[in-house]
């Protein structure tokens, strides 16, 4: 019987009869067909249109200008600043919210009274609408009439300007975003932890491993698919952060929280420069692609058990 040797992306090598392999491929294509149609119509076609439009000028006449808009972007100080601050924001948020999320998931994976209620409560920041979250934090962080500074005064600590200070505003938004994302990452890590059979932990304990050892050698490796997912999604979505700037700070003060997507949205819908906005978007797309690719490569060998 003719055999096909294949190695899938978990690293496992499988020897599969060739008839089965091609049948596999056929089933795969059939199952993927709806996705294929959907993504083509609703993603690839619009994206190609937008890319085509980015090769034109925004001025009257819409002349075809090749990659002028892209070159312009690299000379556009405001866009560059936007991108840099967004990158800083994304990395900080990703690291912090993953650490907090995992930590919470570990704590909540234990059995104790009230864990269900606590789990629900911790998700409330994520479930509340962005407008309310924004308004609430703006009121809390208001340097003159906000509660936080009042508390600091009462405790004797120095007050901060928070959202009025162009050096602090971005970090205030990092804090708010981590606070919102913690619960979300917690749920993902919880789902991942649930997928680790308890009998592995039991077996390790019987073998004499302590908590830290179990964590290092069983939990972390087996959580790898979840961790990879969380980190990729976190980077991608925080690089595209929009709501905080749109609802809370309007990109200020002094453009210190002018997230890249917020900036591009304004270029398109406030300034009316759609072609340039498309070019800016595709440049960011390339950046995200590179970052994601790096993360995927680092995690190439998954684990199967």
């Amino acid at each position: 019987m003719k055999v096909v040797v294949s190695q899938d992306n978990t690293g496992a090598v499988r020897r599969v009869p060739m008839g089965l392999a091609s049948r596999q491929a056929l089933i795969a294509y059939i199952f993927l067909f709806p996705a294929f149609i959907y993504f083509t119509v609703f993603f690839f076609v619009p994206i190609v249109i937008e890319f085509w439009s980015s090769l034109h000028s925004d001025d009257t006449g819409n002349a075809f200008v090749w990659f002028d808009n892209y070159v312009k972007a690299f000379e556009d100080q405001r866009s560059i600043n936007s991108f840099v601050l967004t990158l800083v924001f994304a990395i900080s948020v990703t690291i912090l919210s993953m650490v907090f999320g995992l930590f919470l998931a570990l704590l909540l994976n234990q059995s104790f009274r009230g864990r269900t209620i606590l789990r629900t409560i911790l998700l409330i920041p994520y479930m509340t609408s962005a407008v309310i979250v924004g308004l609430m934090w703006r009121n809390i962080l208001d340097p003159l009439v906000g509660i936080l500074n009042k508390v600091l005064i009462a405790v004797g600590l120095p007050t901060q300007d928070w959202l009025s200070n162009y050096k602090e505003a971005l970090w205030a938004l990092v804090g708010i975003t981590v606070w919102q994302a913690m619960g979300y990452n917690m749920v993902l890590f919880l789902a991942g932890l649930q997928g680790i059979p308890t009998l592995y932990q039991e077996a390790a304990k019987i073998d004499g491993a302590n908590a830290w050892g179990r964590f290092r050698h069983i939990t972390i490796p087996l959580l790898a698919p979840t961790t990879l997912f969380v980190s990729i999604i976190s980077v991608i979505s925080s690089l595209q952060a929009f709501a905080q700037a749109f609802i809370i700070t309007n990109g200020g003060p002094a453009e210190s929280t002018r997230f890249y997507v917020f900036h591009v949205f304004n270029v398109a819908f406030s300034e009316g420069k759609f072609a340039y906005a498309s070019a800016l978007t595709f440049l960011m797309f390339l950046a995200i692609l590179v970052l994601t690719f790096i993360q995927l490569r680092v995690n190439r060998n998954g684990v199967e058990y």
Partner: protein
Amino acid sequence: MFKESLFPGAKPLTYLILGILALLAIMPFIYMVLLSLQTEAETFAGDPVLIPSDPQFGNYLDIWQKAPFARFFLNSAIVAGVITLSHLFFDPLAGYVFAKFQFRFKNVFFLLILGTLMIPFFVRMIPLYSMMAGFGWLNTYQGLITPFLMSAYGIFLMRQFIQPLPFELIDAARIDGSSEFGIYARIILPQIKPALATLGLFTFVTHWDEFLWPLIVVNTTEMRTMTTGLTLFNQEYYNQWQYMAAGSTVLFIPILLLFLFTQRYFVEGIALTGLK
């Protein structure tokens, strides 16, 4: 799930840490409810009012009358509900393929799909809008729903959770003569219940809170969703925060219910029995 502590002495520390975080986390909910009970004058006041002196429970009745709130609620429910169901059907199917099948171009397709996550929505918005106009689907449920039937996020999530499942499960089912779709429905899906619950919850929340697309697609007040409907309470230079908060509280409840409902899928660990 551990029946005992993560490490010796973990329990009291757990309670402490979680207690503090829970307090931090519950702030917006409390704030929202307090805000919803304020009088309009209090929302204008210079110093933020913490405890309203004269709680206006009537605000909750007012919102149903000031705008067709019930209709907004229904629209949001239909749109988010159908989208979520669609995701729960199609995303795991594609995720399964990427996790467990080998075929040419697999990685290319996967990266293409993953790539769609990297383009912010508003970039596709105008061509999509023209498309909907061309189909005659503006201001309709189809127009609100079809751009969101599947997502790379969901497919990626499903792939990650299906990947660790052993091939033996699938091979065994094939040997038993099960159909491919049967394997998917009866073997794979039950194994990833926590992931499905997560996907369902997140998808619903995301589309419950969707603003930009309903803004441009909907042309009449009756077809507005909650998010675009709530902005009716915003005046030009000041917002009627008490109504926005009351509306947001009402918006919040289905999400809470949905979360409580999906709780049980997060509960048990998966013990793979009978397979060594």
